[in-house]
């Protein structure tokens, strides 16, 4: 069996940022795939804040952010058996779901009403720390790595990832050709990946 002692109420529930958390989340996801509600409870505790955080960054509206967060977590429950550890970490799998859902929500809303959205750069600076739950160390590391990018790279990533804009929208917001933005985005993520020391 697994190394998880499920009768222990004090079992460790590391946050997604701590070493070993990814392997742990993978283990719990395997249990969730078999319908284990207790394991899903643990998965919720591990990922809910990060999911809600990124969804809220993109969606802004708190009520809608809650709806999207709920959808994402149910998606995790339903599709736990589809997670393939050979294709990336469990954290990345969940966050990819979360971000895509948030972006889908924003874009469908934008279709309905041409609501005015200020740019993510002006509205939500990348070092915003209000109501943070993630360790300040992790936050600091991300901030430092974002700071190591060129200004264009950083703005591209911030607008796209936190702002939920497409690369062509980013291009027109920044007044830069789309082809340039595409390249900068890729370069920026590669630099971030290396700076953050994530396994590739």
């Amino acid at each position, binding site marked *: 069996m697994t190394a998880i002692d499920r009768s222990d109420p004090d079992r460790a529930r590391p946050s997604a940022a701590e070493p070993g958390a990814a392997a742990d989340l993978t283990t719990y996801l395997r249990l969730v795939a078999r319908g284990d509600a207790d394991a899903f409870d643990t998965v919720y505790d591990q990922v809910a804040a990060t999911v809600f955080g990124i969804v809220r960054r993109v969606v802004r509206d708190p009520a809608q952010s809650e709806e999207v967060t709920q959808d994402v977590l149910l998606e995790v429950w339903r599709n736990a058996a589809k997670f393939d550890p050979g294709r990336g970490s469990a954290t990345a799998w969940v966050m990819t779901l979360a971000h895509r859902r948030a972006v889908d929500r924003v874009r469908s809303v934008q279709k309905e009403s041409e609501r005015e959205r200020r740019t993510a750069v002006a509205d939500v600076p990348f070092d915003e720390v209000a109501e943070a739950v993630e360790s300040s160390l992790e936050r600091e590391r991300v901030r430092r790595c974002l700071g190591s990018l060129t200004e264009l790279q950083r703005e591209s990533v911030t607008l796209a990832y936190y702002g939920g804009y497409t690369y062509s929208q*980013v291009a027109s917001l920044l007044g830069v050709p789309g082809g340039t933005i595409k390249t900068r985005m890729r370069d920026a993520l590669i630099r971030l990946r290396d700076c953050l020391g994530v396994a590739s």
Partner: protein
Amino acid sequence: MRHTRDVHTLAGPYAMDAISPPDRARFDRHLARCEDCAREIAGLREATARLAAAAAVSPPPALKARVMAVAAATRQRPPGPEPEPALRTWPLRTWPLRTRPLRTWQGRPTPSRRLVMAAGAVAAAAAVAAAVVFGVSSGGMRDQLSQAQASSQQVAAVLTARDATMMTGAVRGGGTVTIVMSHSMRELVFTAAALHALPASRGYELWLIGPAGDRAVIMLPPARHGMTGPVVASGLRPGDHLALTAEPASGAAHPAGRPTTPMMLDVVL
């Protein structure tokens, strides 16, 4: 026909979902053939996951109960690939009969709700007067719905319906409910979490209330681990509301198929 190298420059936008649906589809096809690209995307997504982690904010505590309740009523998918279109199973806000947005029934009463509450009070008075007749007309429906409760297949059918719509909200007196509804099937699945515990002499009862008449749906089974349901309500009609009341556990006090106690929940379907 674009050149492969041109497609590959979409890796950055793709990893951040900063891409139009046609471009996303194009890159997906490219990924299926390019293992290096899949590896690169995986690496970039580890980086974006860290960007997400840096934005972490605790969600409201009530969200957890709702998620757990819906998960308990949601069938999981088997492993392996599936042709099902991704992420489209839970569209929100597609219920054509709904007359007000989801959120309004969580907060202050709207005029429409007050109206329904008043109607409920009238119905309650009528119910007391007609106490003897219970069981004749609604008994059959109850049996039917009890059987429905046992049918996890029926629950799964609603949850996976193409037009499944999900609503969540708070119950007056405590607890949260989650409703998943299919307009085309005219059915809904109801689950509740952390409902206020009732004395043994009373139980929660679910109702459909509308122009087509008031119908007792089911006496909810006792909560297990704080979770109630899932139960299925069938035969939804236009204009129906879903209501929850605390009734005598015998169920014998609402002969005319009408609630005898104030509604603790009133959802416009």
